[in-house]
């Protein structure tokens, strides 16, 4: 027991690692017809993690692996969201990947390894752990994008993703090495203490900051480091797009929190990265929302909308205080919820040999299936930030954080761009409700997909009426993890 007990904060990761290795072996003995075994085991593994994280969760901050790994309330909340997002992703994508010949063991094990990488990122308290988690997640995602070997767009997307991802990792590493040179430590909490002592007089620190922010910008998909995002979202199989577009955003948020807020959160440095984030936020809002208007492909449109949303997320983070961080956290969780639903909807409408990825494919959805049209309506209005949906409160808290930090002009810019954003979300609603259907294929998803999809849509509405249910845990998590 004496060897096991100190590892308590990392129990979920260890459990997932063990389960993933087991699934890797079990899958060798599973035929294509009984792939459900792998699927069930995968869900079981994630469910197990959920239970473990839930049980071991505490408001206290605890460290393990000689301070390289941290378990605080923020990591617990984010991890729980990651599990749920991955589980939902698997349910949505199972029928989709099955008819496209991708329902193999690799799909599940890669997804689990990526999940593990995200968990490590979320809990990292050391620049190496952080990087380890990032690479574990990224490498698994690169190969998932390329899972459809025969598809040229998918391989092209994978290539782009890999090259630009490697570039971003290189920048991050470079920045981290400079940090190490300046501070002499890689441990984030100690780094923070040293940075406070040294202040910004140290040019190396500011230099390191530039590289790190650029690397983060790549991972987040913020302008001007966004070029990979639309191509990857478009080229990847929708199931993988759904995956990339959801859970990794949570880990990216944690990544920013750990590095910028925790490691480089000294007052003088905050001012330095605040300026960079302001530029990135405004550009992301502008490019994301304006370019999305010109898209006819829904996956591309959602990719640009993601860029716009990341701009909003940065708006919360750049406030540089607890209000802003909890706003950012609320935003990212709500964003994941909406993203799951919208990409899931593309898969619900797709069938063997047909991808419902163009805007036109949603024409007249209200006449084909009023219920799904209604869910998509909720999701779109939520993305646009119209009450009473969850997306409205996400925007509200982020804007509040920006105004609280003194950036009233930024809030005005943000709402103006979100007005432009409303236009293309409305266009989809218009196609679904005002136009006549061109496609008459019945929409009959599997029972589990139907139930989850409905819950997903209703959750957006529910959180729009009772946003406190999610807002309170976010504020609590940030306060417990960062105050003091």
């Amino acid at each position, binding site marked *: 027991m004496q060897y096991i007990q100190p590892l308590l904060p990392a129990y979920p990761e260890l459990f997932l690692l063990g389960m993933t290795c087991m699934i890797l072996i079990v899958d060798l003995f599973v035929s294509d017809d009984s792939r459900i075994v792998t699927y069930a085991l995968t869900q079981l593994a994630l469910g197990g993690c959920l239970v473990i994280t839930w049980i071991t969760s505490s408001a206290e901050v605890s460290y393990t692996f000689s301070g390289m790994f941290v378990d605080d309330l923020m990591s617990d909340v984010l991890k729980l969201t990651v599990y749920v997002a991955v589980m939902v992703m698997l349910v949505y994508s199972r029928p989709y990947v099955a008819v496209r010949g991708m329902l193999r063991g690799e799909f599940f094990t890669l997804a689990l390894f990526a999940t593990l990488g995200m968990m490590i990122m979320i809990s990292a308290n050391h620049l190496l752990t952080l990087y380890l988690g990032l690479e574990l997640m990224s490498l698994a995602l690169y190969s998932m994008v390329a899972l459809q070997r025969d598809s040229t767009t998918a391989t092209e997307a994978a290539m782009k993703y890999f090259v630009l991802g490697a570039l971003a990792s290189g920048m991050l590493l470079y920045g981290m090495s400079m940090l190490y040179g300046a501070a002499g430590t890689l441990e984030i909490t100690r780094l923070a203490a040293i940075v406070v002592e040294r202040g910004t007089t140290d040019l190396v620190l500011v230099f390191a900051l530039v590289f790190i922010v650029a690397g983060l910008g790549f991972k987040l998909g913020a302008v001007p480091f966004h070029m990979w995002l639309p191509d990857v979202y478009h080229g990847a199989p929708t199931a993988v797009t759904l995956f990339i577009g959801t859970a990794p955003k949570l880990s990216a948020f944690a990544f920013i929190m750990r590095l910028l807020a925790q490691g480089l959160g000294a007052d003088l440095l905050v001012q330095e990265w605040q300026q960079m984030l302001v530029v990135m936020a405004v550009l992301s809002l502008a490019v994301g929302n304006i370019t999305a208007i010109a898209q006819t492909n829904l996956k591309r449109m959602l990719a640009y909308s993601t860029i716009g949303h990341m701009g909003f997320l940065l708006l919360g983070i750049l406030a540089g205080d607890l209000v802003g961080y909890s706003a950012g956290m609320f935003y990212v969780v709500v964003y994941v919820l909406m993203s799951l639903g919208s990409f899931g909807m593309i898969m619900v409408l797709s069938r063997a040999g047909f991808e419902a990825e163009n805007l036109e494919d949603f024409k007249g959805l209200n006449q084909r299936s*009023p219920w799904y049209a209604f869910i998509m309506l909720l999701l779109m209005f939520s993305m646009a930030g119209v009450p009473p949906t969850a997306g409205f409160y996400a925007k509200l808290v982020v804007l*509040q954080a920006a105004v609280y930090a003194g950036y009233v002009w930024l809030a005005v810019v943000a709402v103006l761009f979100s007005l432009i954003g409303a236009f293309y979300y*409305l266009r989809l609603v218009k196609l679904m409700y*005002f136009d006549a259907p061109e496609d008459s294929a019945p929409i009959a998803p599997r029972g589990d997909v139907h139930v989850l999809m409905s819950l997903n849509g209703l959750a957006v509405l529910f959180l729009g009426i009772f946003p*406190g249910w999610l*807002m309170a845990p976010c504020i609590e998590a940030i306060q417990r993890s960062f105050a003091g």
Partner: protein
Amino acid sequence: MPTENLLNLAIWTPIAFGLLVLATGSDRNAPAARAIALAGAVLGFAVTLPLYTGFRPELNGFQFAYSQPWIESFNVNYDLGIDGISLLLILLNSFTTVLVVIAGWDVIRTRVAQYLASFLFLSGFMNGVFCALDALLFYVFFEATLIPMFIIIGVWGGPNRVYAAVKFFLYTLLGSLLTLVALIYLYNVSDGSFSLADYYQLPLSLEAQTLIFIAFFLAFAVKVPMWPVHTWLPDAHVEAPTGGSVVLAAIMLKLGAYGFIRLSLPILPDASHVMAGFVIALSLIAVVYIGLVALVQADLKKLIAYSSISHMGFVTLGIFIFNAHGLEGAVMQMISHGFVSGALFLCVGVLYDRMHTRLIADYGGVVNSMPVFAALFMLFAMANSGLPGTSGFVGEFLVVVGAVKASFWYAAAAATTLVFGAAYTLWMYKRVIFGAVANEHVATLTEINVREFLVLGLLAAAVLAMGLYPNPFAETLHTSVNDLLAHVAQSKIP
């Protein structure tokens, strides 16, 4: 009778019934959907009646208050309460919903459940706006009304419905998003409160007040709509189905004016005084210029839409001259305009359902085939031109009296509406109803049926009642109006 839940009932009864209506599903169950919707609308109106009987007009402040914490981490409360002004608007809204449900009874044949549910949701949301005493709650309800109206115009509207629906949505969203920023700013300077009561006491510098006023103004002026941001309204009205036009004109436009009364004036009294000249100028332009524009319209619905803008100019004029006559007149005008414009759109709907044209030129001599309809239409046309004895007179008269107190020239310009209003309404009436029978379609028109008679008859009764005996309305308003004026008179500059 427990009174604290009455406002909750007023908001949530229509919404709950809307959900029930949606649950009936496809058009095979249309009769059931209609029955449930009617029950919901009637019940929704019935639960607002105790508000009137239980309301004590002599009391200051808000009545039937109900408060629950809503988003605790943000200190947002679900605060409800009404004064005389909101009471009348709630009654008007719930009453209109009943009429709209009846009016769409056999006119709407596709996606009936969704149509009726949209109106019930809309009714609930708008009652929410009139009841909300928390700025965020107000904003949520205010914005939520956009979704059903967008769907109503876009799905059941005319040929150019998509353009009109998107224009309507984006136009109104633009203004309200800036309002959101202003509310967030207020939240921060008030140390984390969204309560309107706190805002009423909050000292603000003139500069801050002016900026916030501009943000509010954009939202509310678009909604009213005031010249020159009125251009979405004629499009929306022309394309919307009859029910949509009725709700839009009768209630939705009032949201803007109500916003001025509930938010701009009491929160920003100094900025309101500074900006009053500007607002009054825009109002007078609306009254005079839009009145002239209405004169030359060839389309019936457009004519009434422009007449609405012109009449709403009276409302904003009355609000911003800051005296009891003007403000009371403005609210009376809002209520009266709700009855009259709703009735006129219903009249156009009656004609359109039979002839499928809205062009004035296609009509003529309708009185020969539809005498009862012509009589009712006459009453509403007279009310629209402000004939004494009808509801239209009361509001306009009070506003003009108030305007004289403020400045003779305001009154002189405003009073021209009595000429222009009569000119465009009566000239339109003459061309449509009188004269020789224009064509064989007009000759074969059938008289209005019982359902249509019921709807128009109810409205006619309301128009006459308010015109002949406006006292109950005025009494409900007195205290609230004076209370509001007391707020406006008090400077908040620290």
